[in-house]
């Protein structure tokens, strides 16, 4: 007999006919005058046709081409999991009082089957806050997925979940991986991977729910609701909810747990704004603002490691060269399409690099202890309010170094920058009410 577990809760094309499966469903179907892909639900263009007459979907081509000659097969989720003999939660850490309060609220909501949002500031330790609820869900033999629009978030998360729930079968799924799929109780994956699932999960945790590209992609939003069982529910996690979520919160449409204080009890670092008049002009002459150079040299002298955020990929070579000429050397640059991206981020984590120059890809999901944050060109439209709050949130995250410096160089004030400053101030006011204090 074939191992059919890969079809549990999924919709897959079969390489060969599988006698155990009932007749599949045509993958690209005619509906009215148009054709629709049954995996990603997108409509085909009138030109998306092969020479042999078959229709094919270009939108989800990266996951293997589906055509009007392909069939998709599914087996409804049987929740065939065995529970580990000992404790499900093998995490050794301790939640702070504030985290414990939030964790209890999250667990109560999932026990009641509610859709909910956990709004926790950067560095609040939101992953650990979910652990008690997760342990409860796994004990019910629920199938659970922890998903994020960002692959870096998944890559950082998977080993932590592996440690925290050691006896639970787990798998990690993302675009370029080579390891095969295994049927598991806890799946960590990018949201794209959910396109292969159907009504599989009793509970979905959607991490960084406001991050690109989820916020702007109806295809991915639908993928989430399709991957969830009809009886299932979900938890959204974010530090910076977008307009739409904030509206749902105000209208009381979403059970919301709010945590305005970092796990170590110190307030969020504020954004220190500095003017850098016409820095782009200077950059064409391979120079950076004198103030910035002085600051980075000081970091070099005190062995303070830092992240320098810049607006665009094309800025990276020029800025690296200007830094080099100013004697600020030994770091690396990184961007989304960089083939060595993962290796460089790891080198930074391992304290092998004194600094990274990066685009907004490192705005979230990555944690480096004791890091200073500098933004050059924070008034560029690529830096949204949420991005700036997230970037500032990279600093001061560890309990040993809660005092993080965040400096933002701009040519002019923009609304996004002012809003980010106001949001941090507002969160800090609320944090103070819960006993938050400034680090010394």
């Amino acid at each position, binding site marked *: 007999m074939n191992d059919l577990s890969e079809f549990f809760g999924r919709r897959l094309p079969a390489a060969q006919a599988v006698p155990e499966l009932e007749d599949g469903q045509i993958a690209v179907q005619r509906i009215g005058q148009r054709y629709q892909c049954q995996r990603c639900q997108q409509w085909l263009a009138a030109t998306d046709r092969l020479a042999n007459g078959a229709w094919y979907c*270009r939108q989800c081509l990266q996951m293997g081409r589906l055509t009007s000659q392909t069939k998709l097969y599914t087996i409804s989720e049987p929740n065939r999991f065995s529970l580990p003999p000992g404790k499900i939660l093998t995490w050794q850490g301790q939640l702070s009082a504030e985290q414990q309060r939030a964790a209890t609220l999250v667990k109560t909501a999932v026990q009641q089957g509610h859709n909910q949002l956990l709004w926790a500031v950067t560095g609040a330790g939101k992953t650990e806050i979910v652990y008690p609820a997760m342990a409860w869900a796994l004990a019910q033999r629920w199938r659970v997925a922890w998903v994020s629009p960002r692959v870096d978030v998944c890559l950082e998360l998977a080993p932590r979940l592996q440690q925290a729930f050691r006896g639970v079968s787990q798998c990690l799924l993302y675009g370029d991986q080579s390891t095969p799929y295994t049927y598991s109780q806890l799946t960590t994956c990018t949201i794209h991977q959910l396109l292969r699932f159907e009504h599989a999960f009793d509970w979905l945790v959607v991490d960084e729910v406001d991050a690109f590209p989820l916020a702007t992609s109806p295809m991915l939003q639908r993928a989430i609701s399709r991957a969830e069982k009809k009886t299932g529910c979900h938890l959204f996690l974010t530090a910076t909810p977008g307009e739409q979520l904030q509206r749902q919160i105000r209208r009381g449409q979403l059970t919301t747990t709010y945590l305005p204080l970092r796990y170590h009890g110190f307030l969020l670092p504020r954004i220190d704004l500095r003017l850098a008049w016409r820095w782009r002009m200077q950059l064409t002459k391979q120079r950076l603002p004198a103030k910035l150079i002085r600051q980075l040299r000081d970091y070099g002298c005190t062995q303070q490691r830092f992240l320098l955020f810049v607006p665009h990929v094309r800025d990276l070579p020029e800025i690296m060269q200007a830094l080099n000429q100013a004697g600020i050397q030994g770091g690396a640059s990184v961007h989304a399409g960089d083939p060595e991206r993962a290796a460089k981020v790891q080198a930074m984590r391992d304290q092998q690099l004194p600094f990274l120059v990066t685009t907004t890809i490192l705005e979230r999901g990555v944690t480096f202890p004791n890091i200073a944050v500098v933004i050059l060109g924070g008034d560029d439209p690529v830096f949204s309010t949420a991005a700036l709050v997230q970037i500032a949130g990279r600093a001061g995250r560890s309990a040993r170094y809660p005092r993080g410096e965040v400096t933002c160089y701009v040519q002019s004030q923009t609304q996004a920058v002012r809003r980010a400053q106001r949001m941090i101030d507002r969160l800090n006011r609320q944090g103070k009410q819960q006993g938050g204090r400034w680090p010394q």
Partner: protein
Amino acid sequence: MICVWCQQQFQPIIDLKALLTWRPLPAPALCATCTTRLTPITGPSCPTCGRRQATTSICYDCERWQAEPLKNHAVFQYDAGMKAYMQQYKFQGDYALRLALQAPLRQALRRQAYDVLVPIPIDQQTWLTRGFNQVTGWLSGQPFQQALTVKHAHKEQPQSAKTREQRLVTPQPFALVPQAADLLRGQRVLLLDDVYTTGRTLRHAAQQIYFGGAKAVTSLTLAR
């Protein structure tokens, strides 16, 4: 306008010369960024296989093939960008990407002297799974003759999975179609293929075309 490769919106750049010719402007399929991912072969190249190189003398690979000369031209270099293109077009089966190379191929064909254009065929199994012949996909109205077929039960390993040595000893995969002699007799034939790697495939094809009575056979590939 939407780029067929990256699917981003772009503004096509219209040059003055094209505007002044009063002909309908061909819509560009690729945005500026995607265009630069492919490298056209200009300047010196190997006179036998069309590979880009510093001199115009015969390259090392072709030197070893002296016994069966076949003159090939190539349009693009087979570099990382072209590999990415082929990966998406041929192996992922994104037929829409054929549009990206129709215009350069049209120009390249204009520079060739031939009577009959013969594209390299694909076998039945590939036709069923891929759903198109990647070579004829690049043609946009140019007449061609499918004078060759792939022999039955030929398909075993794909070329790309073989070592160079394995490819060089591959048995003849092609046969002539029944009416081939009428199409080929006394003609100058141009073979068309996607990538020139060892030239083995093209030489097999050329051999059959000569059997069919062609006067001369040359070849053009999209990449080398």
